């Protein structure tokens, strides 16, 4: 089970992810609503894994991912985006993302992906 930081600009998606991850026995150590806050929270909390929305105000998810990887190359980040933005996958993977989930998502698959990234 892991200590997870959830990054998404909508409270609805953060709450949904929090419920899914909590039901899988994970500990939600923090939340952030944009990329800049994500980096600060990451450095403060040192989570085992981050779920990162791609499209966010101020600093977007890809930029936040790059900043987190620059600060901690071993950081485990799963990107999370809406249907139709799958083209971002290559960019995210190139920037160091370990996994990718597409909204809308289903709880069992999200938990499988998180488990797989945490155990890698």
């Amino acid at each position: 089970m892991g200590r997870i930081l959830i990054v998404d600009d909508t409270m609805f998606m953060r709450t949904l992810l929090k419920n899914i991850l909590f039901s899988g026995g994970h500990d939600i150590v923090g939340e952030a609503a944009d990329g800049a806050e994500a980096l600060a929270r990451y450095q403060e909390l040192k989570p085992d894994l981050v779920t990162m929305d791609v499209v966010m105000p101020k600093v977007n998810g890809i930029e936040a991912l790059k900043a987190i990887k620059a600060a901690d190359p071993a950081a485990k980040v799963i990107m999370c985006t809406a249907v139709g933005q799958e083209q971002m996958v290559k960019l995210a993977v190139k920037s160091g993302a370990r996994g990718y989930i597409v909204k809308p998502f289903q709880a069992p698959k999200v938990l499988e992906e998180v488990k797989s990234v945490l155990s890698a």
Partner: protein
Amino acid sequence: MKSVPIKVEHEGKWVPTTMGIGEDRFRIDAPLNTEIFYKSVVDLDEKKNQVVITAGAEGKTVYRVASVEKVLSVLKKFIIMQASAYRLNAYFMSPAVRGGVLIQDARWDKGAIAVMKTGIWFVSQEKQVCIPIGDVAGIELTSREIQEKDLNVVKIDHLSENEVVTSFVLCPMTTLQVLYNFLKEATRDSEVNEEIDPLTGQVAMLVYSGMDSSAIENMLKLSHKDLDAIYDRLLDIGLAEVLYVRKEVQLTPKGVRYISDAVKSPIN
């Protein structure tokens, strides 16, 4: 025509027999003693180790055949490639996304697509994938980055073993448009034409994600009664179906007596 052992449904029973699989037809031996041309097949469906073949001008003759995977695979391939169906050569990726998780090693398969009465078949050298039309949740003509180029694809969302799966089809734009229109028409019954308010939409999204009633009530700060009303709306417009009815109970005098007694002499 090489003969292989199969079982065929005959007068409500599964009967062992043999089948010949030829280039343009297949033969089912006694008790059916019949030859069927692949081009007369109008529908093909599959269930665990079984295929259901519908043939004939009016599609009235149905053959249920059970056999090992290898035999069914050869038979299905001949049928898909020659049956009376809308068919095109294309690249397909299925599944590309499962339950919202992108399958990172998914790749494009070169093959053919056949749209039959009840299902869309993808067939390549290695794969045979059937998407039942009734399980299609969405059809979209969109673009996808392939080998660093944005190319048009048809995106098909469908249900598979209670998971939402996304598959993609890639072929020249003119064919793609025809395929899109064809599939759109075939799945017209599942289109959503009703106005859905934001709260009902959020509930639908949470149900999709696998949240149960109590999780939804907590997340959206809804009462049991409010959530029931939203569920009724989802049921009315056909967006949801009842999985089970949750019971809320209160104790009878007998129940109260049991609890009172249990408190006096606690059971470990």
